[in-house]
């Protein structure tokens, strides 16, 4: 059977083919200009998801890399500071040894005592080293200067009222702190109201965990026993819910920071402790075993007092102090190493992922260009056909 081909059909087919070739050409041109196979989600929905996942991974690694760099510079500063402290401690040990011997006289000891003071000051200033705005040895209280020249114990004073508190009266702490380590007490108002209505909770770890809530009326007299010899007294006034009062209690000694370490994420579920607390490095409390400044001041006193026995008594302490500092110097090295390994892992992984991502989203240029040329030829053929189609007609042949 002969199919009737009508005029409409001819032109319909022609325009249809032209627009489909044009459409495909446009798509290829887009791919050629971006050199990407996936330019919108529908080009390859699954591929798009993969690319997004890779992109997320790369961005996370970028951030972890920044965190690693930050931790590394902190550890570097810590390491060089500890190394300087170590040098000075060696010098002091030599001095103590020579002044402990029988050849030393009251005059040499007095001289040594005078020479010791600047060295102690140096160690003190090293222990108070700052990186940016942060003291590196004050645990997580990076805004607090960690060491003071004189030993002291917290013996009361005003409690710190948080800025947003409703309560406008004064809160004062009385008593002498008898605890072994530095503690940040936080008292939080759970139910607001006047003294006889309000209830509170107390935290002994800076607000991370809380004790049981008090009963209504417990605050009636205005005094709360914090424990360890301290109590806090409020003037009459009205509390708001969530009002907090902080007490930085420190044990007898030179240290004012806390015993915690600063941390950063350097990977998924991978946390890096990048700081040491001054408590661990320079005191005999918490993780520390020897009171560095105490020992040094003992030595100074013994020297000044021409007390050979007293000088000898500090020798063990000095040695231990040096060991303690060296130990943390070594830990710095291990942690820096850990950071470097993690970082180079990330570098390798980044390269892998970039490669994988390119496999998924990048276009095969050779194939693209060949395809494009083929479509160009098809387009030319269609245009030629469009030019010729009107020329052939029965009208040309009948007169």
């Amino acid at each position: 059977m002969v199919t009737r081909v009508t005029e409409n059909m001819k032109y319909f087919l022609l325009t249809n083919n032209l627009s489909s070739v044009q459409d495909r050409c446009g798509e290829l041109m887009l791919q050629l200009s971006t050199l990407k196979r996936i330019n919108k989600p529908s080009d390859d929905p699954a591929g798009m998801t993969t690319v997004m996942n890779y992109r997320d991974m790369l961005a996370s690694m970028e951030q972890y890399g920044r965190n690693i760099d930050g931790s590394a510079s902190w550890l570097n500063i810590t390491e060089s500071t500890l190394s300087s402290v170590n040098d000075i401690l060696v010098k002091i040990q030599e001095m103590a040894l020579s002044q402990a011997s029988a050849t030393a006289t009251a005059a040499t000891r007095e001289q040594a005592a005078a020479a010791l003071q600047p060295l102690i000051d140096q160690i003190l200033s090293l222990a108070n080293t700052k990186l940016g705005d942060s003291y590196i040895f004050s645990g997580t209280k990076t805004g607090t200067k960690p060491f003071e020249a004189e030993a002291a114990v917290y013996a009361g004073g005003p409690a710190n009222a948080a800025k947003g508190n409703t309560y406008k009266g004064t809160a004062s702490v009385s008593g002498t702190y008898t605890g072994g380590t530095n503690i940040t007490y936080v008292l939080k108002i759970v139910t607001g109201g006047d003294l006889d209505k309000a209830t509170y909770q107390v935290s002994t770890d800076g607000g991370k965990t809380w004790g049981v809530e008090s009963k209504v009326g417990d605050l009636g007299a205005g005094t709360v026993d914090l424990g360890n010899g301290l109590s806090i007294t409020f003037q009459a006034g009205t509390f708001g819910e969530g009002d907090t009062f902080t007490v930085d209690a420190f044990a007898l000694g030179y240290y004012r920071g806390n015993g915690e370490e600063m941390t950063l994420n350097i990977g998924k579920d991978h946390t890096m402790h990048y700081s040491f607390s001054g408590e661990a490095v320079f005191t005999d409390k918490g993780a520390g075993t020897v009171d560095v400044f105490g020992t040094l001041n003992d030595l100074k006193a013994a020297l000044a007092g021409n007390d050979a026995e007293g000088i000898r008594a500090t020798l063990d302490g000095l040695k231990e102090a040096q060991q303690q500092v060296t130990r943390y110097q070594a830990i710095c090295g291990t942690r820096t190493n850990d950071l470097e390994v993690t970082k180079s892992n990330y570098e390798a992984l980044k390269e892998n992922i970039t490669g994988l991502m390119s496999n998924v989203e990048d276009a095969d240029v050779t194939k693209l260009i060949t395809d494009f040329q083929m479509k160009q030829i098809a387009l030319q053929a269609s245009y030629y056909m469009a030019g010729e189609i009107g020329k052939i007609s029965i009208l040309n042949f009948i007169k």
Partner: protein
Amino acid sequence: MSNLGSVMNVAKGALLSNASAINITGSNIANVNTPGYSRLRPIFSSVGGAAELQFGVEVSGAERLYDKYLEVQLVQQNQKIGYYEARKGVLDRVEGIFNESEGGGLNESLTKFWNAWEDLSANPTGTVQRDALVSAAESLATVFRQKAEELQEVQQDMNVSVSETVSELNSYLASIAELNEKIVQTVTGGGNASDLLDKRQDNLQKLGAMIDFQYIEDASGAVNVFTSNGKPLVEGGRTWKLETAVNPDNHDYYNVVFQDEPDEAINGCFSKGKLAACLEARDITVGGYLDKLDSLAANLVAAVNDQHRSGYDMYGNGGGNFFDPVTDAAQMRVSTAITEDQGKIAASTSVDRDGNNASAIAAIKDSLLMGGGTATLSDYYSALMARVGQDVKDTNSSLDHQTVIMNQLKSQRETVSGVSLDEEMINLMKYQLGYNAAGRLAATVSALMDTLMSMTES
């Protein structure tokens, strides 16, 4: 016995018949580009009795060439094409909203947001880091709001489209009914309704692009149009018009109802055509994307706020909400307490200003909050994007496929009903020849008459 007079009559018939055949050919040529036109063919038939030796000719009418079943298939195919074209239009817009192949967009904003928390954890008291975090959080909230608003705009536009489509299809229903009446009149009066039939068919095709329906031609020549579940839309000259009614249970969007039953929504009657596509896109497709975006925003806001409230700000106060506690992406905002005072960002787990709470918030990016504990926020968003991409891809390939079938059907229709100029020109020559020959016949008879007359003179 024959006589010259009857031969003259035959010649007259032949002249008239060929002339009307040329007339019909003329209409075909004139309508070569008229959409929906079905070509006509003259019906020649011989006239004359068995007792006579000669037969005359007459054109008893014009036959309209068309295939009834093909026309039904075309209407059905139009319903599919109408549906997929409208759906593609919507989804292309939505894909634009979700296209992040060049980076940017929500995913990047999320990453920047988490990274800003990481930076803050490294320097918990830094004002620069706090400012950077607030601006990252604000731009994240803005992206969420924009995307939600853009989706809502698409829904609004679809809603307008529903009402426009309903009023347009009402006008087709009206003209089908009107044509029904005219056709019945013309056919009963013995006239040629070819043109009216073409017009009615064209209206049925256009109606097909809007809704799915069935139609039956009754004995009188009128077509009756029914919805897919059998409710009448047109019966003879009568129409049951549709209307839109505001549905307060669905964001005040329109329901489609019959004018005489304004309380009964018939949205579910339509599964093909533009109307179904608009309803589905508005309520299910785009509505679904928006629900997912809302759920993403709600989970993000809740997780960040929970963690934020458990920390402490620069001043030693417990943290408040970081984002306004909302569940709609369109309402997402950083809480004003934070934007007014960056110190209120609770970066620390204790009053000692460690950066651990910021770390904990940054770690939310890896926690499996979505999909019943199977996906992170980013995973969920990628999956949403892939869903959009897949929907667009499926619609495009369905449309391509249906278009191929449509083109096939159109070609078939052309083969049966379309005008071929070659054919018409040859017919024209043929009828011209016939006309010329009939003229010669008349001239010959006239000469014979002359001969006869001159015989009586001499």
